[in-house]
């Protein structure tokens, strides 16, 4: 029976060691890679650090989309009703990106206050409102109940 106990001992110690290692790995990875969400109001209030990868969200402001001629760069403004943030993005905007639409942009805040997008998410459905955006709109008091009450994700 001694050897059986010994087997169990090393089995358990390997398991614990590995579990500890995996946990340590996960925690350090979390530290570096959590991407926080901010609304345009948060940006205005200086809650986000310049240069850090964050996500912002809100509605694409009407009439704010401008393509820079000769380049694949598009500039637009994201609003939560109380504040707006100017975003630039190089690349192809998602199929559902349009004015008045909820959008989430992953990117970095530049020193001049503009936001450089790395990825623009306007997903899947025209009625879909990213939950973060809905929250941001609610917070700033610009949530329109009724006809516009979006977070449905209907059908998608």
């Amino acid at each position: 029976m001694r050897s059986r106990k010994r087997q169990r001992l090393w089995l358990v110690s390997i398991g614990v060691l590995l579990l500890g290692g995996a946990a340590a790995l996960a925690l350090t990875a979390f530290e570096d890679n959590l991407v926080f969400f901010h609304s345009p109001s948060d940006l205005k209030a200086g809650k986000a650090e310049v240069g850090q990868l964050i996500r912002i969200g809100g509605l694409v402001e009407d009439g704010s989309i401008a393509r820079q001629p000769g380049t694949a760069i598009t500039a637009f403004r994201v609003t939560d009703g109380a504040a707006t943030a100017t975003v630039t993005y190089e690349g192809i905007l998602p199929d559902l990106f349009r004015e008045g639409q909820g959008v989430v942009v992953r990117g970095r805040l530049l020193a001049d206050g503009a936001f450089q997008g790395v990825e623009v998410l306007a997903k899947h459905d025209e009625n879909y409102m990213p939950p973060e955006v809905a929250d941001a709109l609610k917070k700033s008091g610009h949530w329109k109940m009724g006809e516009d009450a979006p977070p449905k994700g209907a059908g998608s």
Partner: protein
Amino acid sequence: MTAELGHFALVAAFVLAAVQMSVPLWGAAKGDLGLMELARTTAIGQFLLIILSFAALVNAFVVSDFSVLNVVQNSHSTKPLLYKISGAWGNHEGSLLLWVLILALFGAMVAAFGRNLPPSLRARTLSVQAMIAFGFMAFMIFTSNPFDRSLPAPADGQGLNPLLQDPGLAFHPPFLYFGYVGLSIAFSFAVAALIEGKVDAAWACWVRPWTLAAWCGLTVGIGLGSWWAYYELGWGGFWFWDPVENASFIPWLCATALLHSAIVVEKRDALKSWTILLAIIAFSMSLLGTFLVRSGVLTSVHAFATDPERGVFILALLGVAIGGSLTLYAIRAPALQAGGLFQPISREGGLLLNNLFLSAAAGTVLLGTLYPLFLDVLDAGKVSVGPPYFNATFGPLMAPVLVAMVIGPFLSWKRADLGHALIRLWMALAAAAIAIALVLIYSGVKGVLPALGVGAAVWIIVGTLVEFADRIKLGRAPLGESVRRLRRQPRSAYGMTTAHIGVGLVVAGVLGATVFKTESIQVMRPGDTVVVAGYGFTLDRVEDIRGANYVAERAVFRLSSDGVEFAAVNAERRNYPVERQQTTEAGIHTTWFADLYAVVGEGDSRNGWTTRIYHNPLVPWIWLGTIVMAIGGAISLTDRRLRIGAPTTRRAKGAASNDGPVPAGAD
């Protein structure tokens, strides 16, 4: 009328499940063979009824019966037939019916093919299976009935999300569910074994083919999903560590671990209690995935249901199934007899290492998936956990598995010599070293990690082939002897070799698609040429076209290499008027060693069009490797040892004289 028939069949199946989950269980406790036999009849009856129900739903979609609410919401009369059919499961209610169909399918298969199972184990397994079915059918009947009427019937439907109107995605759910839900049978076997209080080699032998079949389906399903994301979303990526993807990937990792640990139970009668736990966890992860995907806590293309009531119902189901089975495990597992002993360096040790690392990897993926939800619930801020987290945790945890999976098959059971195994693997070591050196010198990619990754892929593919060659004594014995050995290898050995090579291909493809890809974004006018990775992409023209149920802007790119044109690809931006939605279709030309990938964005003839062009080396290998893995699993499934009801009479014939270790079976 057919809708009512479908509804009626569903309710009848529900009642039958109620019988199946109780009577045979009682019969098994009393030792009443007649009552136990009832499990088989009801399992098959339940399956037939659900087929009928499912057929009724598909029929409603095919004939565009707009008096059925589900059809109104998810179909349209102009939709191509394939998508009318796939629309039947492209929505919350229909996908649940598919879920239940596959649950019943596995139950019926056990009933039909499990003749050699001990009657009590079979009865208990089918009872547990019926409990799951009962819960899900209750969920459907009370909160998500696919046969609800919409009267008066509208003239036409609202259409199906165009993103889902795609051949890859039409077949993605059936395969994925086959795997996802198929794991239920391993769960049912595990719970039944806990009730019986007996786990032995025969049990592992019975449970393994079902797990293997489910694993094959899951592998193909995940592959199809990722293929779809690659060509349909137009981001050039194949995997986004999206919570919904993770929800299917976690069960896959668990199922892979389970396949390997079941070998140890079967061959060495060890790791029994761990294997049972793994079977429970694997299906629990499927249930958790279903909850995450279906409850609307995650918003994605899969989140059909955002009705909180439904979420609570699934959560309750989840609690009962996971809580119940783990409680049973806690009570019964200590009573399981401890099995064979083994040294750390041994076949068992290798398989255990595989299990520990795969489970740890599954754990970190789970953590990364749930963490944002936890924070949100605690109101501690909105965060997202992106690919960098998963790359930083999953990569290091998988690396040892990739190294060990080649060495493992060389080790003998109980006690083995690592040095000896490595000497026999010299060719693979050399090949990997050369590959690493070549990448470091020539690729121009910075850092050692990509080179090590390529080394790992070469190591796996060459090492696995070396192992097979070693097994048939290629080059060490006369050719005739080798051929004879080749023919005597069990199917499971072929299966393992094939599946492991598939892993190597996937690793290579993933590296190509992430580290070695080239990308270029620009504005192009007809006639413009962009050179990416040595290939010229010339925008020939942009034209308006009309499809079955959409209109599109199509950009035609001519591809050239050294000024010689060799192909053309079409990238489209489609507009679906019924659904009022746009989709992007990437234009892809594959050489099998690389994909040339073009996407067109917004634009007009005056300012030009935004285009995004990728050169993705080795990307096709991801899906090739996935298919190869699934084929490996399927080959192994045909092994006579695994054929249901042919337990432990293995290797009766002369092949037992391998001087190497005994074949591990298909892992």
